[in-house]
């Protein structure tokens, strides 16, 4: 190795990656060149520094729960596919798994959630990306609300949006930042009515008590409108409606007048099927 080649190998030497012959050659050189020794130490320090930059990144709260929930959902999808292939025993097993699958309820007091948080998930996941980590879109978008409810127990209390001419278009576990903070699970399912990318309604189910806030105040001085049960708000051209059933909060979001969206929300709430009754405490 000539001196310039030698310098280029110092970083690899610092990583302990040279073969014995190269190593011996470098070490002979290092013994008489303090500048190269300093370089080796700095390359090692740089790697440590990159390591710290990597591990200093905070991991979002509830990530492990969300990954587990997704794995669980994919397991159920597989079981149901096997059932269609004529393996009823597995379906029974899947039902048992479902019955045991209890979402831990959150006892926290009502969290103020900014309407913009739900509105941005609506715009990002439902309108732009058609985000579908639950893989419910299915062939030709003919999956039903009942199928979603089988996959995600949180969906059990969603209103019957499909009866208004919408079809299920996708679902994901995305929610506003406040819910991520508090660790609540948020199921986001969206329903499409036509080819117009904006003709889509998002339904959120949150296993936590939330109130919609448009003022940004903490605590919120009470900025909501609407009836006592169905509170609404707007974020730009997106309307939002929020209500609660038992310990689950629901939010609808869509590009339509608030009154129209409230009607969708007030539509007949599908009864939770007995099989999943335990999953909604």
């Amino acid at each position, binding site marked *: 190795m000539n001196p*310039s080649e030698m310098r280029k190998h110092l970083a690899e030497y610092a990583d302990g990656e040279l073969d014995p012959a190269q190593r011996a050659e470098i070490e002979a050189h290092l013994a008489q060149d303090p500048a190269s020794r300093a370089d080796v130490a700095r390359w090692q320090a740089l790697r440590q520094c990159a390591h710290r930059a990597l591990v200093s990144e905070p991991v979002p709260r509830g990530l*492990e729960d969300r990954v587990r929930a997704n794995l669980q959902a994919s397991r159920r999808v597989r079981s149901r596919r096997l059932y269609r292939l004529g393996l009823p025993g597995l379906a029974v097993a899947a039902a048992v798994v479902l019955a045991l699958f209890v979402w831990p309820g959150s006892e926290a007091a009502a969290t103020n959630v900014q309407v913009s948080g739900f509105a941005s998930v609506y715009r990002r996941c439902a309108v732009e990306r058609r985000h579908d980590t639950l893989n419910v879109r299915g062939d030709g978008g003919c999956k039903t609300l009942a199928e979603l409810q089988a996959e995600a127990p949180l969906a059990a209390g969603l209103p019957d949006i499909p009866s208004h001419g919408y079809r299920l278009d996708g679902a994901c576990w995305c929610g506003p930042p406040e819910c991520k903070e508090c660790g609540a699970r948020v199921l986001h399912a969206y329903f499409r009515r036509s080819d117009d990318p904006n003709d889509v309604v998002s339904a959120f189910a949150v296993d936590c008590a939330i109130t919609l806030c448009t003022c940004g105040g903490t605590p919120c001085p009470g900025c909501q409108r609407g009836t006592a049960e169905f509170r609404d708000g707007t974020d730009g051209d997106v309307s939002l409606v929020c209500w609660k059933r038992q310990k689950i909060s629901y939010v609808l979001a869509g590009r339509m007048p608030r009154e129209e969206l409230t009607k969708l929300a007030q539509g007949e709430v599908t009864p939770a099927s007995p099989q999943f009754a335990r999953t909604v405490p």
Partner: protein
Amino acid sequence: MGSADKQSFEALALPHLDTVYRVARRLAHHEHDAEDLVQETFLKAYAAFDRFQVREFGIKPWLLKILTNTFLNRRQRAERGPRSTDPQTLDETQADEAYAGPPDLDYEHLDQEVKQALDQLAPEFRTVLLLWATLEFSYREIADALDVPIGTVMSRLHRARQQLARALHDFAREQRLPGVKTQT
């Protein structure tokens, strides 16, 4: 796949969730995209778990392999077509640029600057550098995880390190830090 296998997948894979997320976070620019990458990685790994041989290949490199492949494929899809910068060309250009040694700086306090420099790297270099930064992989293992020859790993690491060194030289110059010898 038996239910025992499902349990063992979670038991084996979930302890590495933090590492997978942190690498994903440096690959994707947004927290939301990082979490998405992580979800897709674990779903793919779970689906392929029965074909996975733990003894041949530790589960962590395997998860990171799925993660980086998912990331690079998504990028390619997002750009609709071939990668804007062909990795082959990337590997060859600037090959004769002047060598930059690591500047004489206080590396204990450079985390933020290094993080920024990392984020500036082209994806093919960033993936190599991130696996290197975990301190858990040899060059050989990085090559296996990324499915590239070891020579490619070495040349990409060299280039990535040079870019880091230059960014830090620039930083030192901007800050007018005393005692910095600019080596070119």
